[in-house]
């Protein structure tokens, strides 16, 4: 081993190189090591320690190969080499002067990712360096011995790739090294444990294990996870739609773009051929649409929820009355919505409008709603639809032609039909449908369906929709409130939840409210009253087990309600013998 030791020292040189300046206790830092160090210095700068190490390794291996005797040595060497190489990297990049274990570790951590990429080299190199740093003669001696082992392996593999310069060299060597490593990998596992005497090496070893094997996996193709294509697809599709819509907006392209977009939009819209009629109306429609888009984009979204709630009751009241008045207000709101949303849906809807559709207003409404739900961008669709519809409604009252242009997105040309014949009746229906649409836009997040395939079943659903317009206003605001609590649920759960789970929560809440009302009713009647009072609620909470002897109502109030409510619910004594809230 003496000769080998000498060679080992030289082999160590690359790693020792970095540590050499600081660590004196290197028995191996003898003639051979120094010579190697010099070689390293010459061959590579501080940066390319890897290169330098490689070169040195290459030089050394030739001599080492002959001396290689045992597999163990090779394994150990590889281990050491890696650790040392990494250290060398770190050291070269960092401060060569101060190499305390702490700094080394820090450097390692900093450069860990780098080293992983160039693992073979770093793997080879770092091994000796930690040994060197240890600064204990025994360690160093051991390290020298160990250095011998790793060196044996890399040299054999590296020798082949000597010619390639720099990075290419690395890669080639890596490939070659891989083979060597793979062979020596099972053996190298053990030496890792042996080498872990020094904490540095152990820390390095930990990293070694992982990069070793994944390297072969990583390198082959620099395999990277493909980006989320799905998101891109949708986004790209929307972008295309936008482009097409914009193109459509320009009157000149109205003819061509609709046709072009037809095939793409068929999925979203009803498959109705609308080539010629679209031309005449599209300009007017698109003019209005771009106008919408340019206004407040995001405020509309926020306002949607408010609008839906406010519109719902308002619409109900006014629907029989003054649809015309409501239409402009709604139209404005819808416009805001439309503006915030992408133009794609509007473009699509514009195209749809052209189609002379059947006289099914409800169908249109349903389609619009469904489409809005089904569209990948639920909000967008609803927004655009809403805008389109509002426009339609307005125009219907005014002009019969407008209906064509106002086709909501995706929906078939049925809207046109409804618009023309039934101005008065349709307007009210449109209002209702719009009401449906608006509230739909609010809860869509919980019920969003990305697939646009649902558009097809829309026509089937349309007929029942028209009849169930009555309970609709009740459901929508109700649902928004439920969704509010559903969000609370997800917040309390502190875990990601599925959309279906949220729906389930809403159902449970629904049942819970039913039970709640029943109980309150029973309590009130038991007390001989017909109105529910807070005492009933307290009793309810008692029965539910929420309020015990340990936990009182006030405690619960303090826990869950905001401060203001607390003051309102819990009587506090103020100065002047006054209690608030008064009891």
């Amino acid at each position, binding site marked *: 081993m003496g000769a080998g030791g000498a060679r080992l020292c030289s082999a160590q040189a690359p790693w020792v190189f970095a540590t050499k300046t600081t660590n004196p206790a290197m028995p191996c830092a003898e003639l051979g090591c120094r010579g190697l160090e010099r070689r390293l210095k010459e061959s590579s700068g501080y940066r390319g320690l890897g290169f330098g190490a490689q070169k040195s390794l290459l030089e050394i291996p030739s001599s080492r190969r002959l001396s290689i005797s045992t597999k163990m040595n090779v394994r150990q060497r590889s281990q050491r080499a890696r650790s040392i190489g990494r250290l060398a990297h770190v050291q070269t990049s960092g401060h060569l002067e101060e190499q305390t274990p702490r700094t080394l570790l820090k450097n390692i951590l900093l450069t860990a990712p780098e080293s992983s990429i160039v693992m073979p080299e770093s793997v080879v190199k770092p091994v000796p360096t930690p040994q060197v740093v240890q600064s204990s003669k025994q360690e160093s001696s051991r390290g020298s011995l160990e250095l011998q082992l790793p060196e044996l392996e890399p040299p054999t593999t590296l020798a082949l790739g000597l010619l390639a310069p720099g990075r290419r060299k690395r890669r080639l060597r890596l490939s070659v090294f891989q083979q060597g490593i793979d062979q020596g990998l099972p053996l190298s596992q053990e030496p890792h444990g042996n080498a872990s005497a020094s904490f540095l090496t152990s820390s390095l070893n930990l990293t070694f294990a992982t990069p070793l094997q994944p390297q072969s996996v990583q390198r082959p193709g620099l395999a990277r996870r493909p980006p989320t294509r799905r998101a891109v697809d949708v986004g790209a599709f929307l972008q295309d739609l936008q482009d097409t819509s914009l193109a459509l907006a320009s009157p000149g392209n109205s003819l061509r773009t609709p046709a072009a977009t037809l095939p793409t939009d068929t999925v979203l819209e009803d498959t109705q051929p609308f080539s010629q009629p679209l031309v005449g109306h599209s300009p007017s429609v698109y003019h209005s649409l771009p106008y919408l888009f340019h206004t407040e984009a995001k405020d509309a979204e926020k306002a949607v*929820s408010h609008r839906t*709630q406010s519109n719902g009751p308002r619409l109900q009241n006014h629907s029989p009355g003054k649809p015309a008045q409501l239409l402009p207000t709604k139209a404005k709101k819808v416009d805001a919505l439309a503006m915030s949303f992408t133009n794609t849906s509007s473009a699509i809807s514009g195209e749809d409008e052209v189609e002379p559709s059947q006289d099914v207003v409800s169908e249109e409404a349903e389609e619009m709603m469904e489409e809005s739900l089904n569209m990948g961008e639920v909000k967008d669709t609803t927004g655009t639809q809403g805008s389109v519809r509002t426009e339609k409604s307005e125009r219907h009252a005014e002009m019969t032609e407008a209906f064509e242009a106002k086709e909501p997105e995706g929906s078939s040309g049925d809207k046109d039909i409804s618009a023309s014949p039934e101005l008065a009746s349709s307007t009210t229906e449109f209002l209702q449908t719009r009401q449906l649409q608006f509230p739909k836009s609010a809860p869509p997040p919980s019920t969003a369906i990305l697939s646009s395939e649902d558009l097809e079943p829309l026509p089937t659903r349309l007929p029942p929709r028209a009849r169930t317009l009555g309970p609709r206003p*009740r459901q929508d*605001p*109700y649902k*928004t*409130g439920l969704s*509010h609590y559903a969000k*609370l*649920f*997800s*917040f*309390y*759960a*502190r*875990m*990601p*939840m*599925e959309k*279906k*789970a949220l*729906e*389930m*929560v809403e159902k*449970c*809440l629904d*049942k*819970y*409210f*039913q039970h*709640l*009302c*029943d109980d*309150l*009713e029973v309590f*009130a009647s038991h007390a001989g009253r*017909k*109105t*529910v*009072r*807070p005492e009933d*609620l*307290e009793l*309810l*909470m008692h029965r*539910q087990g*929420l309020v015990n002897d340990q936990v009182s109502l006030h405690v*619960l*109030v303090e826990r*869950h*309600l*905001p*401060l*203001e*409510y607390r*003051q*309102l*619910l819990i009587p506090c004594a103020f100065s002047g013998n006054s209690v608030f*809230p*008064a009891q």
Partner: protein
Amino acid sequence: MALSTTVSQRKKIKRKAPRGFLKRVFKRQKPHLRLETSVDLLVRVCPFFGWLAVGQRKVHLNCLLFVHRLAEESRMNAFESKCGVIKKEHVQAAAKV
């Protein structure tokens, strides 16, 4: 309901119109019985914050606690099944019990 103006510190979710929602709940009550009033209308004379009736608040508190319990239960179910996501089944199982 501008709860957000005052609350929103502890509540991450701004309570929009709890009053309106409870009114909806009241509508729900309608189907099975009427005259369940005064809970909504029980407005305390509070010069500071008289936007929500005490009864309504209590109902609100009740709902909160219910949701809280349900969420805890379903979260435990999800943990038991070692899922990182709360699924429908977890919620259902929690609700049945």
